C-alpha cells in the first residue's frame, strides 16, 4: 500500500511524457518516469521515493519493440525482461536476464527499469556494455543517440527530463562465445554478490561485472592486461586498482569475500580464454 497520493499518467507520445514531467517540475513537484513500475512501487511503499506523478512510459509506441533491424538489435526500454529474453535472440542477454528476480517478476520488470534502477546491480546492462551498445535517449530537444559508455550509469549522466527510449547493438555480435557467472549469498534468486559477463569478440576478451562496486562496470583495462599477462596472477594481484570505487561491503557479502569470488571468476575466464584461443 502506498500511503501518499500521486497522479498517474500513461502518455501515448514521448512529447507528452516530457511535457507532463516538465509541467510538474515547473510546479515544484516531483514526477518520476516508470516502465515496469516494480521498483517504484516497492520503494514508494516504504516512502523511499514519494513522487507526485508517475509517468508510465509503457503505452508509448516503440517502447515495446524488440527486433533485429538494419543490422541492429533494437530493444525498447519498456520491453519486459522476459520478452527481451525470448525475442532478442541474444544468448548472453537471455542468460543474464533469467538470473534476475523470478520468472513472474520478469513479466513486469523492464529493460529500462533495470538499467535505471537505484540498486547497484542493473545486471541487464552487462551484455549491453560488452557489445558497446548505443542508447537512444529522449530529450526535450528530441531523440539523441549516445554510446552506452557515455551515458551509463544513468544516475550520473542523464539530465533531468531525459529518459531512455531504446538500446541498439550490432546484431553480428550476439552469437559470439560468452561466459556468465553469478554468485549469490545462497539462493540463486538473490541479488548478486558479484556477477561477471564476458564475450570473446575478434580475438579480444570483453568483461563486465555487477555487484562488485556501486555501479556495473565494463573492465577495459583488465581485458587488455589479461591478453598481455604472462601470469594471470599478476592481474589478479592488482585487481583492486582496476576499480573506480571501493568494493561493496554489505549484508549480502563482505568485501573480502566479494573480492575473492571476483578474482576466482576472472581466473576462470582467463584460463578459459587462453584455452580457447
Amino acid at each position, binding site marked *: 500500500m*502506498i500511503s501518499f*497520493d500521486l497522479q*498517474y*499518467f*500513461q502518455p501515448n507520445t514521448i512529447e507528452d511524457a516530457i511535457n507532463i514531467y516538465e509541467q510538474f517540475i515547473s510546479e515544484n513537484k516531483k514526477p518520476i518516469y516508470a516502465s515496469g*513500475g516494480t521498483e517504484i512501487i516497492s520503494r514508494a*511503499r516504504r516512502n523511499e521515493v514519494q513522487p*507526485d506523478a508517475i509517468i*508510465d512510459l509503457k503505452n508509448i509506441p516503440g517502447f515495446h519493440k524488440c527486433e533485429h533491424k538494419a543490422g541492429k538489435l533494437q530493444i525498447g526500454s519498456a520491453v519486459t525482461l522476459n520478452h527481451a529474453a525470448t525475442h532478442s535472440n541474444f544468448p548472453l542477454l537471455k542468460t543474464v536476464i533469467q538470473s534476475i528476480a523470478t520468472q*513472474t517478476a520478469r513479466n513486469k520488470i523492464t529493460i529500462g527499469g533495470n538499467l535505471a534502477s537505484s540498486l547497484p546491480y542493473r545486471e541487464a546492462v552487462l551484455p549491453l556494455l560488452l557489445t558497446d551498445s548505443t542508447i537512444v535517449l529522449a530529450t526535450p530537444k528530441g531523440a539523441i543517440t549516445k554510446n552506452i559508455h557515455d551515458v551509463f550509469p544513468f544516475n550520473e549522466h542523464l539530465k533531468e527530463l531525459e529518459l531512455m527510449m531504446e538500446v541498439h547493438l550490432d546484431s553480428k555480435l550476439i552469437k559470439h562465445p560468452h561466459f556468465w557467472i553469478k554468485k549469490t549469498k545462497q539462493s540463486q534468486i538473490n541479488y548478486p554478490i558479484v556477477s561477471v559477463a564476458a564475450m570473446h569478440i575478434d580475438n579480444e576478451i570483453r568483461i563486465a561485472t555487477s555487484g562488485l562496486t556501486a555501479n556495473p562496470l565494463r573492465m577495459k583495462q583488465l581485458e587488455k592486461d589479461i591478453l598481455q599477462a604472462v601470469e594471470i596472477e599478476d592481474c589478479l594481484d592488482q585487481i583492486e586498482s582496476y576499480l573506480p570505487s571501493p568494493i561493496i561491503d554489505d549484508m549480502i557479502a563482505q568485501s573480502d569475500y566479494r573480492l575473492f569470488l571476483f578474482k576466482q571468476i576472472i581466473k576462470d575466464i582467463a584460463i578459459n580464454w587462453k584455452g580457447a584461443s
Partner: protein
Amino acid sequence: MNHLPQTIQVQINGQVKTLMVRQAELFLDTLRNAGLTGAKPGCKNGDCGSCTILVDHIPIQACQLFSMEVMDKNIMTIEGLIDQTVQKAFEEKWALQCGYCTPGYILNAYALLQHHPNADEETMKQWLDSNICRCTGYQEIIDAVTLLIDRNEYHEHHS
C-alpha cells in the same frame, strides 16, 4: 487532472467491471476490496508470488501493479479459473498444507501449462520458483505440476 480517485474499466474473470481507485492504489488491494480475496498478500513487495494473477494470460504479481495500469486489460484470478485441472492435480498430490500460497501457485502453474504444455523440468522449475511456500517443502507442488505435464493435460486441448 489531480490526484483524486479515478474510474477504471477492467475485465475480471470475464466480467467487465467499473471500479473507483486511488491513483496510488495497487491492484492487489483493489481486487481484495472488491471481494476477490483469492489473491493473497504475502509480502506486497513482489517477492513471494502469493498474489499472482493472470493479466492477458500472463502471470503478474498483483501487488506490483498500479490499478490504473490494468485499464482495459483482461484479468483472471483464482475465482475465475473454471477449468479445474490444476486444482485437481494439487488435490491429488497434496500440494498444499495451509493453502495460503496455493491460489498463486495454481495460477502460475496454469499459465505455465498454457504457454508450455510440455515444459521440461528446467522451465517448470524456473516458473514455479517465483512463488514461496513455507509449509510443504515443495516436493508435492513439483509432483502436481509434473503430473499435469506427463498426462499431457493441456497439450491436446490447447495447442
